[in-house]
């Protein structure tokens, strides 16, 4: 029993790491530009498919590095051509636009690669269990958690110690002042969007090894990412990270005791958090 709970909690932690990675990207874009990027799931799926295409040429490691950059590049193009026009307008419009994009991405990937799940190869040595007692801790799973940890740490380092990161954080608080101080806000938003989408692409490359490569993978991960942001606290990146891991583990543990409630439990958690602490676990008072 204990082992079963541990197994599902660990599984939940991995899924939670994907939620967190995706939610961090969403949060970055939401905080700076006020755009809910519904197409985030589509970008995640593209990350997986790009990796699938790249692996025969550059191998798994090459794909792990290249695919997210390709996704980020595509994201920046989308931002420049479409989303940029809607800044400063009613948030409704950017919401609908990315919503339409999500449809196009999901259907587009289905059109190009087919609706069925594609075989996705991770290096064999990563797949073997590390110990017989804890058979579920395969190298690939540890590896995923590790990569996510590295990516998140890198992101926080960038945000705290580089000029561009500091500008992004400043822009989150007061974009107008940042603009007046001579920062090119359009460029900043583009880069920020690229960074957010990069995280989605990275999550995609890793997630498809665990969850399977199919067009609907993005749609199935985006709602929990919203919940992660709300539970963790709107506007707080550490909160988003915490929220993602928390709901992942919670839904993993629920699988043991009440399998049918696996998906629903995170929304119940969200309701509980909103009831007791409307700004979310780590959200700042009075910002929303």
């Amino acid at each position: 029993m204990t082992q079963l709970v541990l197994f599902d909690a660990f599984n939940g932690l991995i899924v939670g790491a994907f939620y967190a990675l995706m939610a961090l990207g969403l949060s970055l874009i939401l905080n700076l530009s006020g755009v809910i990027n519904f197409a985030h799931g589509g970008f995640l799926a593209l990350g997986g498919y790009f990796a699938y295409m790249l692996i025969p040429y550059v191998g798994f490691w090459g794909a792990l590095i290249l695919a997210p950059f390709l996704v980020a590049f595509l994201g920046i193009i989308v931002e420049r051509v479409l989303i940029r026009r809607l800044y400063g307008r009613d948030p409704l419009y950017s919401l609908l636009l990315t919503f339409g994009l999500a449809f196009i991405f999901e259907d587009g990937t289905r059109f190009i690669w087919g609706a069925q799940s594609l075989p996705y190869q991770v290096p064999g040595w990563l797949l073997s269990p590390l110990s017989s007692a804890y058979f579920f801790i395969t190298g690939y799973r540890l590896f995923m958690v590790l990569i996510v940890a590295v990516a998140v740490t890198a992101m926080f380092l960038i945000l705290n110690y580089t000029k561009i990161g500091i500008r992004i954080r400043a822009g989150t608080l007061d974009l107008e002042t940042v603009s007046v101080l001579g920062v090119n806000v359009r460029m900043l938003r583009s880069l920020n969007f690229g960074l957010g989408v990069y995280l989605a692409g990275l999550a995609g490359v890793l997630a498809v090894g665990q969850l399977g490569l199919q067009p609907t993978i993005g749609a199935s991960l985006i709602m929990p990412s919203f919940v992660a942001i709300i539970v963790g606290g709107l506007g707080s990146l550490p909160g988003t990270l915490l929220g993602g891991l928390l709901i992942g583990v919670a839904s993993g543990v629920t699988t043991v005791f009440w399998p049918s409630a696996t998906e629903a439990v995170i929304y119940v958690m969200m309701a509980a958090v909103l009831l007791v602490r409307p700004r979310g676990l780590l959200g700042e008072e009075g910002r929303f």
Partner: protein
Amino acid sequence: MNSADFRKQAPNIVIWLLLLAMPFWLVGVGGYVELGTRVVVLGLAAMSLNFLLGYTGVLSFGHAAYFGLGAYGAGMIIRYVVPNTGLGILVGTLVGTLAAAIIGPLIIRLRGVYFAMVTIAFGQVFYFIAFRWNSVTGGDDGLIGWTRQPIDLGFTRIDILHNPTAFYYLVLICFALAVGIMAWLLRSPFGRTLIAIRENERRARFLGIPVDRHIWISWVISCCFVSLAGALYALLNNFVDPRALYWTQSGDFVIMAVLGGMRSFWGPLLGAAIFVILQDYLSSQTENWMSFLGLFFVLVVLFFPRGILGLMRRKAVT
């Protein structure tokens, strides 16, 4: 009625006449009655959403949840409790309204995109319940094994199952009631207050208006009529499946409202008509209708952000 009054009322009269005569002219132009019923049902849903979106200025992206609750409520009453269409509609509407009333206090403090995000996330609970609770809801296959029942008026029975025209008029009666109540509310001091909140929330607050309570009431009213639309939608199809609750359905309602024109009372109905016909056409023409629908969203946002009626009104002014 003097001529100025008449000119003001003329569009309303034309719309009602068109709706009343729909089963006759729609078949003439190559449609079928069920298509008209679908337009009216989804039009009601979009107009209800617009009560909140266009007139209160609150961005809800989760109305599909209450639409779906209305649908499941109606279907389950007829399937499991009593085969009575009227009761199904009533209970469906009540279930959706009640859920909205309970969730309301949790979310009304949020605004803008954050409100949208929380409403859409909450909607998913009901989706997963419907999806997972196989034994009661039929799970992914949907709730089947029931049909809408004849309506017994005491002196006569109206067979709405095999007579699509009769069912259309039942739907139109519900539509007229709901739309009438919404129009009346919007003209009342309460409705004016909602518009004041939309225009300048801070000023409304300074005037001593309990803004949160008003938004909560507006949210409940909006969800009430959207659940009514959901109940009618279930009756129309004799079937409910979890997709009626899914978040993409909420997006469909919002695009209908935006396409027709959020600032006009009848806009969402027009948007719903265009959307239904387009979807009907696309899904019969291509397997990739989702892409075209997505493209349609993008084009509407980029080129018709004010909606068709908004555009027409602007032309008339200049």
